[in-house]
């Protein structure tokens, strides 16, 4: 009797349960799975040769290459910044600490388009820095440096946000212990701090990378859409689409979608590993 009663308290009636699951399933199907499948269906609508042609187009290859290049520059920079910021925020007390924590979140709360516009205002032809930049032959806006800057801005919080809660929970005692044993600050970082955050760091890198490759708004403002030069993959997809070249647009989009799926798989794998590590930590 008691057992049955507790079972009734713990769970809902089967009809309610199934209704909730069905609702969620329908929602996921409608808003997530079908669009994703749609991308691949549209990509192959004109057959495999057309698909291959679309992604072998020199402009497509240039766009993909640019996207990878931008990610290769902005992700490592944000790793360095994210680790440094998280380390400073969680292991030291300094004036302006809460301001820094708030600033790190800024890119999350600002529309990417505005971020792009700010860079145009700052580095564009009519800006304060514009004449100086032109004088020295440095192109920022409508060139690769602008795209990199905008991407760094948008992806800035990912690594730091992933690390701060973990490093806060871990505290400073292991670092103090290492220092008391004679380790230098550098040794302490490499041998104690970094190994403790490696899974969270990798997770942050993945998220940062996914966003860096997929960013549209900010990059769209600063890029200038010069084909084969400043067109990233998301921008290229939009151009193809606007030219009613649907099959090619979806073919290139499928590359991005595939990238997202790989990231998701890697993230799940990491969560599995990382969750394990987390359980260990709690047992510690």
């Amino acid at each position, binding site marked *: 009797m008691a057992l049955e009663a507790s079972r009734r308290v713990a769970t809902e009636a089967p009809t309610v349960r199934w209704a909730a699951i069905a609702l969620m399933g329908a929602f996921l199907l409608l808003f997530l799975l079908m669009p994703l499948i749609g991308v691949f269906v549209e990509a192959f609508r004109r057959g495999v040769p057309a698909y291959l042609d679309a992604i072998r187009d020199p402009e497509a290859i240039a766009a993909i290459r640019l996207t990878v290049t931008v990610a290769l520059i902005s992700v490592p920079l944000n790793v360095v910044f994210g680790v440094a910021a998280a380390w400073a925020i969680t292991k030291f007390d300094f004036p302006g600490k809460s301001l820094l924590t708030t600033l790190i979140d800024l890119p999350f709360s600002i529309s990417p388009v505005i971020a792009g516009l700010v860079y145009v205002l700052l580095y564009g032809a009519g800006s304060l820095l514009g004449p100086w930049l032109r004088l020295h032959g440095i192109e920022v806006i409508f060139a690769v440096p602008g795209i990199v800057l905008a991407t760094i801005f948008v992806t800035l919080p990912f690594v730091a946000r992933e690390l701060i809660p973990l490093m806060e929970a871990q505290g400073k005692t292991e670092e103090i212990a290492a220092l*008391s044993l004679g380790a230098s600050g550098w040794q302490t970082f490499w041998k104690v701090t970094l190994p403790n955050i490696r899974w969270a760091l990798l997770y942050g890198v993945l998220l940062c990378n996914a966003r860096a490759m997929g960013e549209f708004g900010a990059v769209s403002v600063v890029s200038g859409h010069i084909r084969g030069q400043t067109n990233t993959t998301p921008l290229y997809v939009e151009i193809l689409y606007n030219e009613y070249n649907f099959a090619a647009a979806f073919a290139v989009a499928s590359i991005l979608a595939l990238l997202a799926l790989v990231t998701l798989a890697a993230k799940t794998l990491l969560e599995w590993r990382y969750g394990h590590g987390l359980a260990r930590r709690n047992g510690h």
Partner: protein
Amino acid sequence: MEVTVQEISKAFGDTAAVHDLSLEIASGELLALLGPSGSGKTTLLRLIAGIEFADSGKVLFGGQDTSRLPIQERQIGFVFQNYALFRHMRVIDNIAFGLSVRKRARRPSKADIRARALELLELVQLSGLDQRFPHELSGGQRQRVALARALAIEPRVLLLDEPFGALDAQVRKELRAWLKELHRKTGHTTLFVTHDQQEALELADRVVVMNAGRIEQVGTPSEIYDTPATPFVFSFVGQANRIGLPVVNGQVTLPGGENVEMAGAGHGEAELFFRPHDVALSKTGESGLSGRVLTKKRSGLVSAVLVETSFGLVEAEFPSGEPLHAGQEIRLSVLRGALFSGGDSVRWVSER
């Protein structure tokens, strides 16, 4: 190595954690810093370690002023309450850490480091667990690994911050005995912080009782328990009764009728402190503390009796055979105690 603390002060914001404190620790001594939370005992330990830096005053290791040295250069062994083992390293690598991060010129060979780590593991009686990770060990085992890790760098002084605070009672007891034995074998100058008076009295050669950032008393466990120097020590270490008595012309009349000189006090209030086991039953008609038994709790050979007297509630301990029951009118005489008034104190033992 002997450690000297000279007139050290440390404040966090407006609150003084340690106030103008001086302390001498003899080489090879096992010293307990005992006090309630917020008494500054942990801050004092961290000042000696170099985790915190003093606002003023000095810390000397064997005559060398270390006040400005960073923690890396103080060569101390620090053990945390929560062990702070490196969670991603095996036990053996934890213990070897201090030797393996040395500069090349002073670093022993890999084989030597390993041999030394295994030796230390044997010293802390954990041989065979060298390949385990910290999360695979019990709390007591982790604390012993933490100790071995601290000992690996041949520390000039060993500093333990509530080392057994996170362990359950049985393990605490075992580890206490074990630490005492380890100290006897290795002879390191050792300071440990604790809020557990039992632990301090049982383990330490000398106990430093701290309160509100100052030292109340330094002495052997017997001195601390038998002759507490201040009202704080009297009530913090062991059980104590406190009774307020008037001082008239520098004289205090005890409940038993005896007069005690308190020349410094003049007129005012004095406080009489005495232990529950330092009372006896008087026969009716004699002078003493008269009162009524409220409750009686038996624990083993003694019974604790709560008595309501005209001076307030008094706790007394008697052999369990004593025929006492709740509601009974009794008379107590105090055999031994101490009177405190202002800065003045008089220790007093009944002549009977």
